């Protein structure tokens, strides 16, 4: 370690040969590392122990309902983009025990609460993920009785507080990516501790926080050359121009509000399986259900929180019966929430342009295409009704 402090906001260069030092530095700080690793033909964020476990020389081929890994540039480690999961799975687990108690005589004795919050360092978080984490911070991390915001979640706040985020900018966007349309990528704008841009010989490292700077002190960093910085900038420019998908974002809220009864919804309802895959892979979806269980003796009681989906008919049951009885109603609810009513609820978009809902939809339903259909429908229906455009 040198006496020279690395300033927050500075850019450094980490030679590829020194990348392993990141692991050592994180382990020294007591972090468990969550990073990319290939399992069952996909890059998943999961616990890893060393560089050797990371994918090297592979890229992904993504399209609607399609994901395959292929050979990439052998010397590159981050040519793929987001896989089916991400940090959400750790901050907001698919299944979280909330408490356990047993009946003791005439009273309840608490046996356990939620599990201890782990200290996680995420390696390879993509810019769209950072944006999604920011969205979930609004969902789980803030109290505001004035709006419809959920109450803050202590477990979420704790694990977020502990977590270190090492981002990787996307030099090669995927086939279903459209972060550039939202301005959430391909370059991380903030919310990270360190952000890496991969070049052939190493990484341009942007230092985003004091924690990141402290970590950087342990690495064999050097000042980046002008050429390296320029190349990194150029790669971002190129990535921005090569997004697999595009979404016209500015007036989406208005579009979704005026299209509620458009026949375009019937068309997508014929294709939508209502299987819930899009919501399970979405990095901002936060629906969950709380389920109480008792054992055979009726003495041991558990309460568990599970991911749920607005596409589940059963999940929409209220005392008055199910809320959204058709697939049309459920798809419309989901898309309108993502692109429209999310703004009312959390003052941001519920979509960050990661493209997962497109890739992992078993029948390849494409959010950007559906929005475009509504847009074209809007022009058509307005013309038919004689409403002048732009009013």
């Amino acid at each position: 370690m040198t006496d020279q402090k690395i300033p927050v906001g500075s850019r450094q260069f980490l030679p590829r040969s020194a990348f392993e030092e990141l692991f050592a530095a994180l382990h020294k700080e007591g972090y468990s590392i969550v990073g990319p690793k290939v399992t069952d033909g996909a890059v998943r964020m999961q616990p890893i122990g060393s560089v050797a476990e990371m994918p090297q020389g592979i890229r992904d081929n993504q399209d609607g309902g399609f994901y395959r890994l292929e050979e990439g540039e052998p010397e590159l480690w981050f040519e793929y983009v987001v896989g089916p999961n991400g940090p959400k799975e750790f901050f907001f687990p698919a299944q979280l025990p909330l408490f356990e108690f047993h009946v003791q005589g005439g009273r309840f004795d608490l046996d356990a609460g939620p599990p201890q919050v782990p200290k996680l360092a995420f390696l390879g978080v993509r810019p769209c993920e950072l944006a999604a984490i920011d969205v979930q911070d609004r969902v789980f991390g803030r109290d505001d009785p004035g709006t419809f915001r959920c109450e803050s979640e202590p477990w979420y706040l704790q694990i977020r507080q502990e977590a270190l985020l090492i981002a990787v900018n996307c030099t090669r966007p995927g086939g279903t990516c459209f972060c550039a349309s939202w301005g959430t990528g391909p370059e991380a704008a903030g919310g990270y501790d360190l952000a890496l841009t991969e070049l052939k010989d190493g990484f341009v490292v942007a230092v985003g926080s004091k924690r990141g700077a402290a970590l950087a002190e342990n690495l064999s960093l050097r000042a980046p050359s002008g050429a390296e910085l320029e190349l990194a900038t150029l790669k971002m420019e190129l990535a921005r121009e090569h997004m697999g998908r595009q979404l016209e974002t500015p007036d989406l809220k208005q579009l979704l509000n005026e299209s509620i009864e458009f026949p375009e919804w019937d068309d997508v309802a014929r294709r939508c399986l209502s299987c819930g895959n899009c919501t399970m892979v979405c990095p901002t979806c936060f629906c969950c259900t709380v389920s109480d269980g008792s054992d055979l003796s009726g003495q041991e009681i558990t309460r568990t929180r599970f991911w749920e989906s607005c596409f589940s008919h059963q999940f929409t049951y209220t005392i008055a019966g199910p809320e959204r009885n058709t697939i049309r109603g459920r798809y419309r609810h989901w898309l309108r929430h993502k692109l429209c009513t999310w703004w009312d609820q959390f003052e941001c978009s519920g979509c960050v342009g990661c493209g997962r809902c497109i890739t992992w939809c078993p029948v390849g339903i494409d959010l950007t295409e559906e929005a475009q259909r509504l847009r074209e429908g809007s022009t058509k229906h307005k013309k038919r009704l004689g409403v002048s455009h732009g009013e």
Partner: protein
Amino acid sequence: MPSAPPKVAVYKFSSCDGCQLQLLNLETKLLELVGAVEIAYFLEARRRVLPPPYDVGLVEGSVSTPEEEDRIQQVRRDCKYLVAIGACATSGGIQALRNWANVEEYARYVYAKPEYLSTLETASPVASHVFIDFELRGCPVNQYQLLELVSALLTGRKPNISTHSLCIECKRLGNTCVLVAQGKPCLGPITQVGCGALCPKFNRACYGCFGPMEQPNIPSLGQWFTERLGHTPRDMKRMLRLFNGYLEPFKQASEHYERKEKGG
């Protein structure tokens, strides 16, 4: 808690006994179960039979013979709650494949002396004959769902049995989608949850042994399988007609693909 443990009866109709075995396979929990309820009628597990009425009856198997047709009526009269367990009891099961064929012809293939057989034209689910209070899907049923059912009945609460797609559970468990990432014809998106996503966990496509989920969109998945993954209408028919082929809407959809197969 009631003073006397509730009496439980386990019945077998036309079936392979696999669902009853799921009860016996509960192992450590089995002792707890035997402590919490009185096993009053369970021929596969014990010889002793207590007289009816019973509080809970679990029925395994489809109604496939004239004798069973009568017996299910008596079973209903004997049980306060009647629960159909497993694909045979809830859909007719694999033996319901004969419902699309000539039973006599099938019998001639299988049995040396088919004249000794007394069988109905169709194998049908229990609910086609009597009112049932609840059903557990699956071939076989999931033992945790069985435990959940009994625990809920004992406490007097609603069993936590979901009816949404298998995909939701599969994703919760962190499996990578075998349909999207490997192009396997997985029935998960139209199949009811409950098995613990057993097949996708081992990189296999779901074959729908828990039957149709709530409001499945079979035409859309079928279109994807036939147009994108290169499967034929015959493949679709066979995928849908396995353990739950006789249960709507798998039944209707399989008949649709059969018509397409024949060029209709």
